[in-house]
């Protein structure tokens, strides 16, 4: 009887590793699956985060609306990712920005922030909430926002934050699996990771 020898070429192992590696989900960075943060959207309706977004992959940004430079870039990056994914009919992905400045970022302020940028808040959600609830969420997501410079405009003191610059991707189970620098995130890489996670 003829003996058949199987020889596995090293390249085969490499490609199998590459394929399985590419298709698997990134590791969990922060697990919010058992959390329930009570937040408020731009219509002043209560939103349970992340429960109300279950079964959706969430592209999540952390912002404050008085920020003139970094946070608008983060918001814009998420909006461009949304536009790109909408072209592919990705209805299982949703987009959320949470304010770390709840005292000034009321639902009405967040609504104006979105509308002046032409953002539809039915598809891209802007959330605020009670200060302690927001603090708890920020802590769980390892987001920092510390008071920075203050500026007096017409006798009103305005303050700015030194803050984490972050976009995260949360899977449909409420587990954050990828994080990027929000203002300068590579959108192609972000979309590639969203497609691995969703």
């Amino acid at each position, binding site marked *: 009887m003829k003996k058949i020898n199987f020889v596995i070429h090293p390249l085969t192992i490499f490609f199998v590793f590459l394929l399985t590696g590419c298709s698997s989900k990134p590791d969990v960075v922060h697990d919010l699956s058992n959390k329930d943060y009570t937040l408020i959207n731009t219509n002043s309706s209560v939103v349970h985060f992340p429960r109300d977004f279950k079964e959706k992959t969430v592209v999540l940004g952390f912002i404050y609306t008085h920020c003139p430079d970094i946070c608008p870039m983060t918001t814009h990056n998420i909006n461009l990712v949304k536009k790109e994914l909408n072209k592919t009919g990705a209805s299982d992905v949703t987009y959320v920005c949470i304010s770390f400045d709840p005292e000034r970022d009321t639902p009405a302020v967040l609504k104006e922030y979105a509308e002046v940028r032409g953002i539809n808040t039915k598809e891209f959600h802007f959330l605020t909430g009670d200060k302690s609830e927001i603090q708890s969420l920020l802590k769980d997501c390892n987001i920092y926002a510390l008071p920075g410079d203050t500026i007096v405009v*017409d006798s009103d003191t305005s303050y700015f934050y030194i803050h984490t610059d972050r976009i995260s991707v949360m899977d449909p189970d409420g587990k954050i699996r990828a994080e990027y620098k929000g203002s300068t995130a590579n959108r192609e890489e972000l979309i590639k990771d969203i497609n691995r996670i969703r």
Partner: protein
Amino acid sequence: MYIFLILISLLNFSYSGKLEVKEGWVRPAAKGMNTAFYFNIENNSNKADTILSVNSSAAKLVQMHETFKKDGMMGMRHIEAIPVSANSTLEFKPGGYHVMVMNLKEDLKNGASVEFTLHFKYAGDVTVKAPVKMPGD
């Protein structure tokens, strides 16, 4: 020969090209909120200059700021004046130097424009009109 070289160097020193403010744009923002004005300063002369301040009637306060990174976080600080080297381009861009336009008097929506006057130490005042837009629009 020496006189010729001195004349050449004097000619070179006294040559004054233009200082131009180009590619300006402003992010959209709502009334009462803040935004940023970005642009390039092209100094095509052999003389260094300094940008001292920027004004606009579109907002209650306009200041030059710089975005910085500290301990993995991002912040901003006010800058009083910024030198513009001779024969160089100084960029005011997202994540770097920018003009902070605070407490807007009206909504700034895509397609609108805002007038700014930049005050230079030597070149004097340069007024530009910047479109309101998002990068990539």
